[in-house]
């Protein structure tokens, strides 16, 4: 009898005591970064490469023990070096440099399940507004190449899930597990300019929309968080 009583006490007060962590009101700044670089040497003394980075900063605040909201800011950049066969002279032309930059701002809501003092998972919805500018060569499936400049505005509603590990009260490590972008709308302004003088350029506007209840899995991105109001 006494044993059961103690056991019950431990399981009710003990467990909830551990989980009564003091998250409410805490604010954090988090960062997540990804970089990539590829280089291939082709057998004709030409090397091609591509590179890029994504960097996200988020500012969040725990509204309760299990709920946090915040804002995030993302930037990305990518570039490449490649060769294109633009005409029938047989000499490929080299193109290199930055071909895409992007910025975005978003609002997120996260719901947490704390497994113990150090580990937990979180998931929740978010809204993102992004802008990107890109430049590329496109032949439209034909023989004429166009220099294409695209400006793109994107609004999406998504879900994201992740896991955290608490190193200390101030420092957390986070990893994303999965994400979904079920609803997205995108508007693209594109300008096509012919490389040869034979074909003139043109403009193109595009509206893209999508509803897709799917999950991208796994999507691993690593980040850190720093809690500053303590």
């Amino acid at each position: 009898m006494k044993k059961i009583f103690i056991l019950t006490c431990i399981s009710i007060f003990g467990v909830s005591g551990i989980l009564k962590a003091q998250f409410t009101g805490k604010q954090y700044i988090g960062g997540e970064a990804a970089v990539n670089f590829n280089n291939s040497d082709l057998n004709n003394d030409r090397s091609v490469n591509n590179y890029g980075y994504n960097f996200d900063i988020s500012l969040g605040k725990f509204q309760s023990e299990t709920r946090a909201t915040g804002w995030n800011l993302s930037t990305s950049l990518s570039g490449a070096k490649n060769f294109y066969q633009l005409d029938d002279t047989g000499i490929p032309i080299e193109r290199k440099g930055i071909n895409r930059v992007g910025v975005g701002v978003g609002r997120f809501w996260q719901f947490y399940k704390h497994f113990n003092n150090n580990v937990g998972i979180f998931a929740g919805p978010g809204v993102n507004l992004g802008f990107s500018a890109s430049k590329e060569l496109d032949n439209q499936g034909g023989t004429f190449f166009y220099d294409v400049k695209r400006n793109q505005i994107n609004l999406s509603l998504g879900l994201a899930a992740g896991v955290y590990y608490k190193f200390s009260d101030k420092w957390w490590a986070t990893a994303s597990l999965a994400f979904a972008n079920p609803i997205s709308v995108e508007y693209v302004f594109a300008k096509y300019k012919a490389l040869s003088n034979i074909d003139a350029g043109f403009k193109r506007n595009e509206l893209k929309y999508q509803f897709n209840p799917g999950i991208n899995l796994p999507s691993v991105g690593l980040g850190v968080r720093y809690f500053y109001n303590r």
Partner: protein
Amino acid sequence: MLKNLLLSALGCTLLHFPVKAQLEKGTKYFGGTISFDGTRQKSPGTLGSKIHTININPSLQFGTFIKDNRLIGIGIGTSNSITKGSVENPSGTDKFTRSDNSYYLAPYIRHYMPLGAKWAMFLTSSAQVAWLNNKTKIGTVNDSENGFSVGLNIKPGIAYWITSRFSLESDINLLSLNAGYKDLADRQDFSFSSGVTSNFNSYLSVRASWYFKKQ
């Protein structure tokens, strides 16, 4: 009395999940999902063009549990892709329409393996018969071709119950087995694939499902 009370309190602290899946014999099953995407493209100018594309994929599944954890049912669905365009020429405007449609019927058998009260894994084996129809219209010229395809596939999935009657489910394309035959306008395709080779990053399409227990 107090002992019972304490024991039940202990039980409550251990059982955090009040949701219980209903996979008993006689339970009726209904599931459905839809996805769509589209593009509206416009190039202004004297040689301008307008192209609208829309892809839409609804699917429904019905079934009955013939044994505990064993579901037999039928899936129906369509996949439609429609492109409409007009291109300005010096001589006038060229208009075209193209639609690729497939309508399928897929009887299936599914085995569930409950993992706790909220989660379950399942393995679906299904046979699929589809009727294919492609239509094109360029100017005033109509063209149409019909065909069919048959296939067999086995794939696993996971289910998560939000309430005892409602769950979200997803097929996992990672470990699937497919065999198919397609016959469309003088062209025959035979395909076989085991999903172990499929792209690990491929997304999991989520289906909303309801379980109605027999009264």
